[in-house]
């Protein structure tokens, strides 16, 4: 398996062209969507209740779109401006933040009803400079401590990630525990090379739900059944039909057809100092806004 996190820092790896490629690849869309649905299942939120969720490393909003469909309010954070820009273009409904999760969050205590993270935290395992605050354990500690505090009690955080060794799983879970989380690792399809997925399923204050404190079971077999896969795919195609060719949602009635081509809009209004794409999508390690 290729390991993007070994290639370049995330905000550089996910530059303009990779962000577009990543988001429009239908195989990738399908995998990320399946994992998001599974993460929501593991999150075990009380049914039919509104919830306020955090999407950690939300990228271009592939998960966020599902959160929108499921009727959740959410906040997404990501370190890659190009990914966030694609999320803006796709008109996801959550509030987006340019943020390095390894620097920790500033959210007030107990505000989120849950958190998900899909294919992100393996990125925290690489040191990108020799500064003490950039060591993986330091960043993981900062991340888990401030995440724990931002979640209400009881609640859960479900983080799917790609560990490259059992040691990495061990490191991540031990730091999460020190930060106050209960729970542990759930592995789906452990015997399938392709379908195997690792979910860190973390509990705050017992985790909530009927079987609280008890870690959910991983799924068995070789991956989702043909029919189930087909059904999910059908559902997704249904969604896709509502989109135009560029992947944008068609304008929906009411106030929702707001224009996210803001730059265009501002130009029409004659606003001169509209930030240019190139500025927002700057490739520097720290973009200065």
């Amino acid at each position, binding site marked *: 398996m290729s390991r993007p996190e070994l290639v370049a820092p995330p905000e550089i790896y996910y530059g303009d062209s990779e962000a577009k490629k990543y988001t429009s690849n239908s195989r990738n869309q399908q995998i990320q969507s399946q994992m998001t649905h599974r993460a929501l299942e593991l999150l075990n939120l009380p049914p039919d*209740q*509104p*919830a*306020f969720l955090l999407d950690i490393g939300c990228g271009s909003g592939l998960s966020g779109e599902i959160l929108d469909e499921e*009727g959740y*309010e959410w*906040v997404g*954070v990501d*370190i890659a401006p190009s990914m*966030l*820009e694609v999320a*803006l273009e796709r008109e996801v409904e959550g*509030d*987006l*933040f*340019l*943020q*390095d999760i390894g*620097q*920790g*969050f*500033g*959210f*007030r205590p*107990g*505000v989120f009803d849950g958190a998900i993270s899909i294919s992100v935290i393996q990125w925290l395992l690489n040191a990108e*400079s020799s*500064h003490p*605050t*950039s060591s993986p354990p330091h960043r993981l500690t*900062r991340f888990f401590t*401030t995440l724990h505090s931002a979640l209400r009690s009881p609640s859960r955080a479900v983080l799917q990630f790609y560990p490259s060794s059992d040691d990495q799983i061990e490191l991540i879970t031990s730091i999460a525990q020190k930060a106050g989380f209960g729970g542990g690792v759930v592995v789906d399809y452990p015997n399938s090379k392709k379908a195997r997925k690792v979910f860190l399923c973390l509990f705050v204050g017992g985790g909530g739900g009927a079987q609280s404190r008890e870690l959910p079971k991983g799924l068995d077999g070789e991956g989702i059944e043909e029919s189930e896969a087909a059904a999910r795919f059908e559902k997704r195609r249904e969604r896709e039909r509502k989109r135009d060719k560029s992947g944008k949602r068609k304008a929906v009635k*009411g*106030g*929702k057809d*707001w224009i996210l081509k*803001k*730059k265009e809009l501002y130009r029409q209004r004659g606003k001169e100092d509209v*930030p240019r794409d190139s*500025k*927002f999508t700057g490739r520097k390690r*720290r*973009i*200065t*806004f």
Partner: protein
Amino acid sequence: MVRLITHNLLACHAKGCTTNNFPLVFKDVQLEIRESEMNPEFLRNFYPKLEWDALVKTAEQLGDTSLPKTQPPIESVDEEFLKALHHVLLEIHVEEGAMTCPNCEHRYGIVSGIPNMLLAEHEVA
């Protein structure tokens, strides 16, 4: 899209900045109002999590004075009130500008509705 609902949850997370670091103060903002569907159940659920003083103060700074100075008890709120709350929390979008920390004065710039929460190395706790 910084909406006041999110702004109300956000404190400064720079190193050593643990008191007087909330609420962040909006500067040089450009607003956009976008109507959205109201979800009364969500609002009621969220109601106890709000820092009311910060919300009222910030809304005022952005030119909206529809909310009362003290937070009415949840049992007493009606549809009319929820509509005003919905508007303030979810329909006012800060598109450009900045949020600054009242304590350390860190400036979190906002471009295309996205606040830049990145810290410089020396600001990381």
